[in-house]
């Protein structure tokens, strides 16, 4: 499938993650200074130049497991910590939100407008920090360079690649259920009314021409939907009105983020087989992670800045309960690094992971190597 998909996947999921974290930071009344620091640290890490270079190289998408590992690291790029249950929920929400946005894009090219909506919002989060702002603008320009001249067919291929990545995910999100954009079976509602995409005519007209090209007959028909003409096209420039609402922040303090785990996904027989068999791509995924992580510079928290734990649930009890009751088929299985195989590969990854060491949680171990591998296995 398309080798140009990863930057869009990463940036949009990252954007959704920031919306959710921002909402939870305010809901948990974390002091303004601390909250801003967390957001700044994460955004700085996300838009790191070396990291972006790796991201924009043509490459196939890797597994959900590999990608999840990157977001785990990102979420912990600052003084904030999340428990496993909260991290799981965060990832569920991020992925379902972006899946919805990709599915509902009126034109394949509008996936770029969705991305720009996320970037516009990220720029607003860090509007007081000119350094980070520059980094984000740089990425913006890279996106414009890389994607502006792609054809509709190439965008559709990117969209298909993304949809395949999200296939069979049907986690119910309460904000979607409330807004009636998702059904109780987890599938999204596809509207058959409203404005048609820019460049599409409202369905209902047949025009017939003779061999000279003159129109000889015009017939109207009922197509079944209730569509209207679109107002205007969104802007693909660095600044501008995107018009499209997909990709803008749908959370606010009064609209909490919840998910329902029951009756979520139907797995085909092939999916369970995939989980049981050894993953032939594991080595390539490790390569990918090593390259990406190599570019992720994590700021070490200084001693004077005490950390805090963010909870994606309303109470600690709820979080504990969620951890215990998460269905097996929805667990994000970590990448199991078998220390006996490919020692050199693992050492390289372990070295890079060493830069991400969590300092405020005491660990008991005999050697640094074991420590790091154990830490990765715990993800």
């Amino acid at each position, binding site marked *: *499938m*398309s*080798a*140009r998909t990863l930057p869009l996947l990463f940036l949009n999921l990252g954007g959704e993650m920031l919306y959710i974290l921002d909402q939870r930071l305010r809901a948990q009344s974390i002091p303004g200074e601390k909250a801003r620091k967390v957001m700044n640290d994460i955004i700085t890490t996300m838009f790191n130049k070396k990291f972006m270079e790796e991201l924009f*190289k*043509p*490459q*196939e998408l890797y597994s959900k497991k590999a990608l999840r590992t990157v977001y785990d690291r990102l979420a912990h790029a600052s003084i904030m910590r999340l428990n496993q249950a909260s991290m799981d929920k965060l990832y569920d929400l991020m992925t379902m939100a972006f899946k919805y946005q990709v*599915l509902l894009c*009126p*034109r*394949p090219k509008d996936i770029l407008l969705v991305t720009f909506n996320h970037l516009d919002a990220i720029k607003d989060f860090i509007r007081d920090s000119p350094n980070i702002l520059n980094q984000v603008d740089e990425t913006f320009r890279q996106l414009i360079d890389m994607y502006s001249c792609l*054809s*509709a*067919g*190439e965008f*559709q*291929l990117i969209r*298909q690649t993304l*949809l*395949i990545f999200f*296939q*069979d995910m*049907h986690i119910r999100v309460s904000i979607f259920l409330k807004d009636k954009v998702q*059904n109780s079976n987890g*599938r*999204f*509602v*596809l509207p*058959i009314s409203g404005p*048609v*995409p820019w*460049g*599409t*005519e*409202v*369905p*209902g*007209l*047949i*025009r*017939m*021409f*003779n*061999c000279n*090209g003159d129109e*000889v*007959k015009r*017939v109207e*028909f*009922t*197509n*079944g*939907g209730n*569509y209207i003409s679109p107002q205007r096209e969104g802007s693909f420039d660095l600044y501008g009105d995107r018009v499209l609402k997909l990709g803008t922040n749908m959370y606010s303090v009064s609209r909490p983020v919840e998910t329902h785990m029951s009756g979520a996904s*139907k797995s*085909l027989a*092939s999916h369970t087989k995939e989980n049981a068999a050894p993953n032939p791509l594991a080595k390539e995924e490790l390569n990918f992670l090593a390259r990406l992580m190599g570019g992720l510079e994590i700021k070490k928290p200084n001693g004077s800045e005490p950390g805090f734990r963010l909870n994606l649930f309303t109470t600690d009890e709820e979080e504990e309960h969620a951890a215990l009751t998460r269905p097996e088929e929805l667990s994000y299985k970590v990448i199991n690094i078998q220390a006996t195989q490919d020692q050199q590969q693992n050492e390289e990854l372990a070295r890079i992971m060493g830069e991400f060491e969590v300092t405020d949680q005491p660990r008991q171990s005999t050697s640094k190597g074991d420590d790091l591998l154990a830490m990765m296995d715990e993800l």
Partner: protein
Amino acid sequence: SLLSTSPFFPLLYVTANYPMLAATAPFPPFQASWCVLPSRVLLVLTSQKGIQMYESDGSIMVYWHALDVLEPPPAQAVFARGIAAASGRFICVGTSSGLVLVFDIPSKGTNITLSEVLQEHRDSITDIASEVGENPDGAADLVTADDSGALCVWRSKEEFSLLTKISAFGWTCSSVKLWNGVIAAGYGNGQIRLYEATSGALRATVSAHARWIYALDVAPLTGKLLSGAEDSYVQIWKLSRSPDTGDIEIEHCHSECVTDTQLCGARFCDPEGNSFAATGYDLSEIVRYGQV
């Protein structure tokens, strides 16, 4: 014998009905199609790595054509897409670079050869269709479509010759069908266009769908046309030619909404077009409709 052309559907269909094939196929299929020739039926699968041809029961792979693989992966995707049998002896398959590969198929056995490469398209091939109706001598019997929306019309006796080219108008032509010298083309902006195959002249435009059209099918005995799109709708039409003027006509017959489903594959289930089936993204079922 229902098979749809779509990025999501072939994997589902092949794994459900040909589990052995799915298990041994090296890469997930991009597209699958049965090619009916006078002496045999072959199942053709395309993917990012190449083209596989199987006996129709999926038991034996009779041919494998590898696409050039470059390391590191280029920014432009590499794949094969667009499958059609032509002139009772060829199977044509399109590629992402715009080439159309023509394979010569013997009446039995594995001695399949690449006999010609058609190089008229500059953008990725999206679909290929051969004439499924009446074919008066000297007329067109193959249409190829690409990402830019351009169409090429071919005659294939012994060798392929280009009859005419139809220019793009700014939207991807995602699917194409050829029936009684009428080209039906579906586009990414939801429009269906009808062209005269021999001259390439535009004969009708239909603002048929509110989203990307993924599938077109024609019922050869009646000229019924089916279109399936991401707007959840299957629309049924009737193609005809006016006996007085020779003008090509199209009328709307029926709408069917497959609720909350972006359709990616749809086909008639019989040659008269009295029943049809559809499937879509995230759907693990094929939904079938029949006239009562």
